[in-house]
Structures are given as C-alpha cells and as structure tokens.
C-alpha cells in the first residue's frame, strides 16, 4: 500500500486503518440520516449500535446506519453519541 507522502504524519509511524472521517449529515426527527454529504438517502438498509469501552476515559457509543444514496452508492455512517457528530466509515 502506498501512503500519501505529502502528509508528514504518515512518515515513519504506524496509523489506524479505516479511521472514521467526518461526514455532513442531516437527520430526521427519529435520528436516521436524510441527507449524507449533500446526497439524499433513498434507503436505510441496516441500523445497529456499538457500545464499548464504557469503563474507560474514552467510551464508545455509536449508532451505525448503512444507507443507499440517490446515486446508488452504499455508504456507512454513524452518529457518535458521545461527541454528537456524524462520521463515515467502512464497517
């Protein structure tokens, strides 16, 4: 795998694979995504929760959605309940 050599943080240090990226999401009243990165969601295929590390200083509480966008792309996004922000990630 070839990394982006322009990124100084990529040199010489190990980093996480599949790190979450911030996503622009508009949600409905029930918390499900309506628009992801300015594309309308046509279908919510699946929804699940990951609650882990609640005994540490960095607890994980995420609500994942696998959605199909208007363009036909499959995208996985989650709402971080701790931070109150949306991220996209390949789950």
């Amino acid at each position, binding site marked *: 795998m*070839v990394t982006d050599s322009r990124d100084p943080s990529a040199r010489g240090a190990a980093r*996480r694979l599949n790190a979450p990226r911030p996503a622009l999401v508009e949600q409905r009243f029930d918390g499900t995504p309506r628009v992801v990165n300015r594309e309308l969601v046509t279908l919510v295929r699946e929804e699940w929760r990951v609650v882990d590390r609640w005994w540490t200083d960095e607890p994980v509480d995420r609500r994942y959605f696998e959605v199909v966008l208007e363009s036909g792309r499959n995208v996985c996004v989650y709402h971080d309940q701790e931070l109150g922000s949306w991220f996209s990630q390949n789950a």
Partner: protein
Amino acid sequence: MIACLLIPGFELRAALRARPRLALVPAALAAEAGEEPLLGPVTAAAEVSGVKPGMRLGEALATCPSLVLVERDPAAVEGEWEEVLRRLEDAGFAVQPLEHGVVVFETRGVERLYGGVQPALERALAAVGSAWDPRIGAAARRFTALAAASVARPGQILIVAEKEEESFLQPLPLSLLPLTAARYAELEGLGLRRIGELAQLPRGAVAERLGIDGRKAWRLAHGGRKARVRGRRPAVELAEVLAFPEAVGNELTLRRALGSLLERLLARPERAGRPFRKLALAARLVDGGSWRRVATLRDATAELGRLRASLGPKLAELPAPIVELRLEAVELAEHTGQQLALVEPAGEEATARLREGLRQVRASTGTGSVCTVVEVAPWSRIPETRALVVPRDV
C-alpha cells in the same frame, strides 16, 4: 575381505588425550548440555567401580562418589579421528568411516602389498597405534566384521571365514543388532537373547511382528548383505585458524573474526573455484574445552555474504569466551558454476517486479511511504482498531 576397526569409547579417549591422568581413575564422558543426564563411555577404572555407559548421572555418582565427569571435546574428537583415518589411508587402506571410533575398509587392494590378510590387518593396527586400543574384525560381510570387532580384545585381529559366519554370530548377544531400546525389550520379552535365536525364526513371522526393523535385524542375524565398502576420498586440509591474544566473548569481534576467516578460506588456491557445501566452525574455549558446529548449506556457495549469514548465528551458541576460532571446509561442491533455471517458477517475475516497483516508490518518496497492513484485533467491534498501517522497508 571386509575389515572393521573399532576403538570403543573413542570420544572419551580423545577428550582424555589432554588429561591422560584421568584415564587411570574412574571417569566418564558427561552428557551434552541440554540433553538427558546419561553417561557416555567410561574408563576401565569406572567400570570396575560398577559404573556403566548409559547410566543416569545420579545413579552413577551414588555408585561411585569419586567419579570424574569429563566434558565433551568435539573439536578434539574430530581432529583425532581425522588423524586416525589419515594414518590408515597413508598405509594404503581406502576407509569408510561409520562413526567416531568405527571404520570399515576392504583388504583386497593391499593383501598383495603386505603378503596376505593377516599382515595387512596387523599393519592397520600398527598404523593406528596401540594407545587407542584398536581391535579389528574381518569377514566377508560388513555386519559380521563389525560383530567380530565388537567381541575382539584390544589389539586382537579376529578373522571369520565365510563358511563360519552364521555359527560365529549365533552365540552373540542381540545388542549387536541396530535396534531401538523398545525393540530390544520386545525381543527380550519374547525370550530372545542371542542372534542365533532370532535367526532361527521364520523370516515372514519376524517381519510381521517387528516390521521393517525386524526384517533388517533378521537379515543381519544371517550375516547381512554383501555390500561393498565405499572408501572416502581423502579430504584436503582446508582450514583457517585465528588465535586471540586474550579470551573473546564479544559478538561483534567474533563476527569480524569470522569474516576474516571466511575471506582467507575463500582465497585458498586449493579450493580451485569450487563453492562450499559444508563448513565447520570450531572454537577453543577459555576454560580448555572446545566447541564445534557444522553447517550444511542448502546451495553450495562461495559468496561471502551468504556464508557470513549462515555461519554468523552459530557464534551466538558459544557457551564461553574463546581463545581460538577455526573455520574448516568439510565438503566442497564438484561444480564451479551455478546452474540457472531455464523457466522461472510461476509468480517469481511478478514478485520481483512488485518489489522493484515498491523500491522505486520508496526511493522517490522517502522512508515510511511504503506500508503494510497488520491485523491487530480483527475481532474488535470498533472497525478502526482492527488493523494498523505500518511502514515497511522494501
């Protein structure tokens, strides 16, 4: 006629050459470090005290508290054995060494030279020297010659005529046959003690009960096959030694010394361009003992880097600082060139191209630009903790 020259307890005798006084007291060869504590060969004085080879160390010390344990000296054993073989070869015998202390040879080629079988074998005994207490057995078959040597007294020559071979073998103990301890126990359980008793059994029944080992033992009990002796090719002394002014235990110094020895050995004209197949690294330890390791190379080579890579790790096994390092070429390959493959194995070219491509990427973008994925917690529910991207050197 095939002759077998036997020197019982050769490893102990060789180790005692530097300490002859110990030969007169109860002494035994210690087990190798890390092995089961069983005694090796013992001196005559130890045998008189009730100590036997193969005895457990604790039992032996309880039997004879004054027993002296002699440390193994593999370099001395190798050197002395080579000396014995050379003396036999100088006397005209084409020898085939079986193990340390056991060598077989044909007398046919030298019978005319010495005036018969008996004078030829006397010459062989004289060549080895009485200090080793050698004994010789001779017969038409190799196993019978070995058995005759095993029962002969020191300095005795025991010749068994072809017609008398079976009757000679019959009263001898089964322990002369090359069988495992479990097989001996099985045979003893069946009431068999002598080679003749095994020889009298039907061949098929022995094979059915004891398998391949039993069939081989049964054949040997009848004298064995008439196999020819393949005399070894007299080895050319090809060795380099480096003596240190004081004891050295530093790995860096040892590796440099090895590199220097390799360069000197590669420059020897006797090699005639032939690559090494087998090398031995030996050292004289600071406390007087010795150490020796043999490395057989997968492909014969004369490349300094590869030789260094295969012999270098052996230096880490040295048990103590050393005062002398010796490198011997045990076996050279016959060829002088390297046969290349006509068709490269599948995938070889693609792998080479990929490696070259990655090397170029790394060269142009710098360290850390080529990475590999390492799974660290594939079971994790949090996707980003399952694997890491780690920079790698191409």
